[in-house]
């Protein structure tokens, strides 16, 4: 009986290892958002210089739109940026930005260099609004319907192959 006590650490290790191993094969993007189909959280963020007006709950709704959480220090944000540019310029999708924990000067330089797809930008200097949105990493993109509800959430950078599905969601919400 006493021998079994010595096996206990090994047993605990095996349990933890099995648990973590199973976690490795899970897709974090697949985690559902608790906010899906709920109204967008209430927030009100100041503008980024004179680049674009600020962003708050009152600005959402009325029109199907994207809310994109970005930061100049985030490399995947750069990769998805041309996609947002095209959605805004060619498909007429209103794109709103939340500058997550970013220095305004850096965010402005980022937009000057890569172009500004955002109709409105809220500066979320301390990341509090992002917490309200349930964001756990930049970039993240939400689709907001005409009633101001969150209808879709994309965690991580939008890749080229995400363009068509995302546009399809927007089109569907526009006609429904």
């Amino acid at each position, binding site marked *: 009986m006493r021998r079994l006590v010595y096996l206990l650490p090994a047993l605990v290790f095996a349990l933890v290892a099995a648990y973590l191993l199973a976690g490795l094969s899970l897709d974090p993007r697949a985690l559902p958002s608790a906010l899906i189909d709920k109204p967008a959280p209430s927030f009100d963020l100041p503008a980024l210089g004179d680049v674009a007006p600020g962003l708050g709950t009152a600005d959402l709704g009325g029109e199907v739109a994207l809310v994109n959480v970005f930061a100049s220090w985030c*490399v995947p944000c*750069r*990769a998805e*940026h*041309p*996609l947002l*540019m*095209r*959605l805004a310029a060619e498909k007429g999708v209103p794109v709103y930005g939340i500058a997550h924990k970013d220095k305004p000067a850096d965010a402005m330089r980022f937009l000057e*260099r*890569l*172009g500004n797809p955002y109709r409105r930008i809220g500066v979320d200097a301390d990341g509090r609004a992002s917490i309200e949105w349930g964001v756990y990493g930049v970039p993240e993109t939400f689709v907001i319907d005409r009633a101001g509800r969150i209808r879709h959430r994309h965690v991580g950078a*939008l*890749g*080229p*192959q*995400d*363009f*068509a599905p995302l546009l399809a969601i927007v089109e569907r919400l526009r006609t429904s």
Partner: protein
Amino acid sequence: MIVLWLAAGALAVLVALALVRPLLARTAPDAAARLDFDLAIYRDQLAELERAVAAGEVGRAEAEAGRVEIERRILAAGDRPETAAAAGGGRAVLAVALTLLVPLGAFGLYAWHGAPSLPAQPLAGREIKAERDAGSLETAIGDLARRLQERPDDPPGWELLGRSLVQAGRPGEAAEAYRHLIAIAGGRPELFAALGEALTLAADGIVTPAAREAFAKAPGDPRARFFMAEAAAQSGDLDGALRGWTALEADSAADAPWRPLLRRRIAETAAARGVPVPPPAAAAGAAAGDPAAGILRLPPDEQARAIRAMVEGLAQRLEADPDDKAGWQRLAQAWRVLGEHGKAVDALTVAVARFPDDVALRLALGTAQLEAAGGDATLPTAFLETMRAAARLAPDHPQVLWYLGRAAAEGGKPAEARRLWRRLLDRLPADSPARAEVSDRLAALPEDSSPTQ
């Protein structure tokens, strides 16, 4: 290789021994010795008890209880060798299992994760080569930038600077160099393509709006076409990207260096789009554009090798066909980038003999001669001959006027120097930063008894 396996084998044996030794050491003789030891102690305890009773220190009843307890322990000790022997059987199995498991496990892990074909990397050779390469490129860039600060009106110099900066991984500065070059030399399509590429590299491979604007000004250039398709892919227009790349592939020569890259991007994009990969298009008749574009995207060591192979190929081709003037200029430029200034001088000397009336070739030869001499602190005789020959063709070229003026000033002919530099001042644009230096040197010339106007 053999050494590795011997070392690994020896280590496995050592580890197995270390694990197995304590298991095998606890054998029967060991247990017997321990039993003897225990019994000796109990015998001593009995003797001690007898002594205490005899001395009247312990009562009869207590002494009896103590004796019974000691005898009980003696009996218990007598039972133990059997259990130890029983466990010995299990230990032997464990020992055998460990001896097998250690080497087999090690071999299995190595087969799974090891890379036996990896070449050796002796510490001495690892960093020095990369450092030396980077160092010489950095010094060359520093020298070139300083020279261009003094004489900014040198389009080939700026082009070389832009190219070298891209190679040195400083694309942001390269973009500045190309912008300046376009401002002074006008916008050739390939310069806009180079600017766009530098801007793209500076944005970590994202084709920025500014880069797009530059590429739009180089519509036929293969590099521009490649990046415009890349821009389409990045903005989610996978079909547009595929169209652009397959069209470019169809227009590219069979040996165009960017073909493998195109193929890879086409395959990746088709996979992302979920469509079958379009088959490679038939090669076009003639190669178009700048083969250096593909090389820029290779890793650095391959890049150096590819550039060298390309340059040597070009040199051989020019030996067979020396009438290709642009080819000679490209060859000399390439040798300069590689730091082989002597070879640049050789190539340009041949070219000048072939095209004696070409001013640009002579000026390029002069620049190469100065670089081969390590700067223009003292002007080499061969260089001055080149400048005089260039002066016969283009007597008013700023570079010619400046250096012949310096030769005159240093050769004790201030009047001649004054005449040349005044002409130079007349020809320099009002905002040229070189004016100040020329004026300073003019003022510093000693007075002459018979000044010529």
